């Protein structure tokens, strides 16, 4: 083997690493339809336990009235539902709002005030969990966020799964529910179909759920006690930690796709970055905390299975895989331009097929959300990536055909640079994405940042946030709980 052959082989290996997350995504979407057959509904019975709803609240005066009033309207026996609002030393009108609601619904809404706040959501939740567990009235606990709105039938659709003693916890389908979502919120609306309605159904089939949604996690009392009677306070992803602990102890966690919960999501890139950086850092911490779990199959849970590990690490390491694949194709380009062009074309042919299959599957499974977000669905990888796909499909499209329409042509140097940009687009998109929050904060910056968001795509923004989370964790940056600002624009 010559040095050139070894170089080619190395480049192809790097490129193959970029295919792993793509194949993992396809695998999840092939599992998804299997949920029609392999689901938990066959094992449930009507079951309406006494539920304590725990609502952590720090300066949530704007949103609590709507969310708590909707809770009081749940189609659930009123004598089996109590709401504990844990007010984390709020400095706004939260105490007055909650006390007003407690007076309107005596005995059903309880105001719990922490005089010392600011320690983070897990500490706030633990305050309420301790109080609820001290009394044997509670049979199950629903942990939610202050701003989310539960559909009237949602809670009973969740509790029925607890009729199976093997189930420890249940989560619902959180949907973006703003009355008039802006571009970022619409991207999130589409993303939630992929990340929840689709991915969590697949995880139900696999028998291993990655995460109970923070805004909708129902635990049996037994499960809460078994995981230590509280929530882990050392990680930024306390909901994922509890999920995995539950499964490691041999109890099932189930996603209920028909229990719908509406949430207000960030509508600026900066707010999105803040929220997702916390989540991404939390996932890095979880990966470390459960390092002895990955790729070690075990009879009582699916977290150690090869397939679940592949899915988990494909999401976590996606930006690294894309960067390695970019390095591989650029390396190949230096060794052998025509071979690089063939590989590039083949890769993006696969990419185009996967893009179409995943986008269509996603839009079909939640048509009401699809009507609001279909454009963002098709723009999810970004206009730039769609251009790259088209260039892979028709190699001379941008060098000859389009310039030819205007009677022009691109010279050799121009073609070389264009090829370089096309081959490196994944990394270029992540780099532009990294600058978006900064651009948005400048005066008039939103008018530039939003078109750029459509250019680079939402996916690359999430990848850039992952990279930021690796850097922050490596630097040991302060672990602060940055609350996402909510204004109460969710509609039921």
């Amino acid at each position, binding site marked *: 083997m010559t040095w050139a052959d070894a170089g080619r082989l190395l480049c192809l290996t790097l490129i193959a690493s970029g295919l792993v997350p793509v194949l993992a995504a396809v695998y999840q979407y092939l599992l998804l339809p299997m949920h*029609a057959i392999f*689901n938990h509904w066959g094992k449930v019975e*009507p079951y309406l336990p006494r539920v304590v709803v725990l609502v952590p609240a720090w300066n949530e005066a704007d949103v609590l009235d709507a969310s708590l009033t909707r809770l009081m309207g749940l189609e659930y*026996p009123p004598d089996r539902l109590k709401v504990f609002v844990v007010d984390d030393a709020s400095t706004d009108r939260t105490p007055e709002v909650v006390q007003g609601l407690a007076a309107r619904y005596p005995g059903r809404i309880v105001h719990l005030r922490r005089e010392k706040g600011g320690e983070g959501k897990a500490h706030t939740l633990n305050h309420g969990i301790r109080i609820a567990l001290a009394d044997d009235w509670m049979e199950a606990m629903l942990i939610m966020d202050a701003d989310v709105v539960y559909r009237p039938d949602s809670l009973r659709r969740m509790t*029925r799964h607890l009729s199976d003693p093997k189930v420890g916890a249940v989560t619902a389908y959180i949907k973006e529910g703003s009355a008039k979502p802006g571009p970022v919120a619409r991207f999130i609306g589409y993303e939630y179909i992929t990340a929840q309605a689709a991915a969590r159904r697949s995880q139900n089939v696999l028998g291993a759920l990655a995460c109970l949604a923070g805004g909708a996690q129902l635990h049996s009392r037994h499960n809460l006690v078994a995981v230590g009677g509280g929530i882990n306070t050392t990680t930024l992803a306390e909901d994922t930690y509890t999920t995995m602990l539950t499964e490691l102890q041999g109890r099932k966690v189930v996603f209920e796709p028909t229990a719908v919960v509406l949430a207000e999501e960030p509508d600026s890139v900066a707010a999105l970055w803040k929220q997702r950086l916390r989540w991404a850092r939390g996932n890095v911490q979880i990966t470390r905390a459960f390092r002895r779990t990955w790729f070690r199959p075990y009879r009582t849970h699916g977290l150690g299975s090869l397939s679940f590990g592949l899915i988990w690490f494909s999401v976590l390491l996606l930006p690294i895989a894309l960067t390695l694949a970019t390095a591989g194709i650029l390396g190949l380009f230096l060794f052998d331009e025509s071979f690089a062009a063939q590989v590039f074309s*083949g890769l993006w042919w696969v990419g185009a097929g996967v893009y179409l299959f995943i986008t269509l599957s996603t839009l079909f*499974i939640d048509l009401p959300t699809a009507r609001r977000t279909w454009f963002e669905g098709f723009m999810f990888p970004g206009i730039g990536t769609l251009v790259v796909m088209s260039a892979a499909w028709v*190699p001379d499209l941008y060098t000859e055909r389009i310039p030819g329409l205007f009677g022009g042509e691109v010279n050799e140097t121009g073609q070389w640079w264009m090829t370089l940009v096309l081959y490196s687009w994944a990394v270029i998109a992540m780099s532009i994405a990294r600058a978006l929050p900064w651009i948005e904060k400048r005066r008039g910056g939103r008018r530039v940042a939003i078109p750029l968001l459509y250019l680079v795509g939402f996916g690359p923004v999430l990848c850039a946030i992952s990279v930021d989370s690796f850097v922050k964790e490596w630097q040991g940056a302060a672990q602060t709980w940055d609350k996402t600002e909510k204004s109460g624009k969710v509609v039921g």
Partner: protein
Amino acid sequence: MSEGGVTDETHEAHESDPVRRPAGPPDDLERPEWWATLSDDALRDETRANRRAEWWVLATGLLAMAITVALLLWWGEPG
């Protein structure tokens, strides 16, 4: 209406009666209204309806795959 404390015996009873079918809603109620009455029959019917509706996910998965293959064939190979 089932309260808390479901036992293993409850499960065994239903496992031995797998073909049990809940009655339909009264004439004056739509199905979702009937489910909201929270009677055992209504809740069982709701679960069965949710389970049945899930076949939509299988159908759409196959449809998405068919459309993708058709479009790729229509466009042809790269080049």
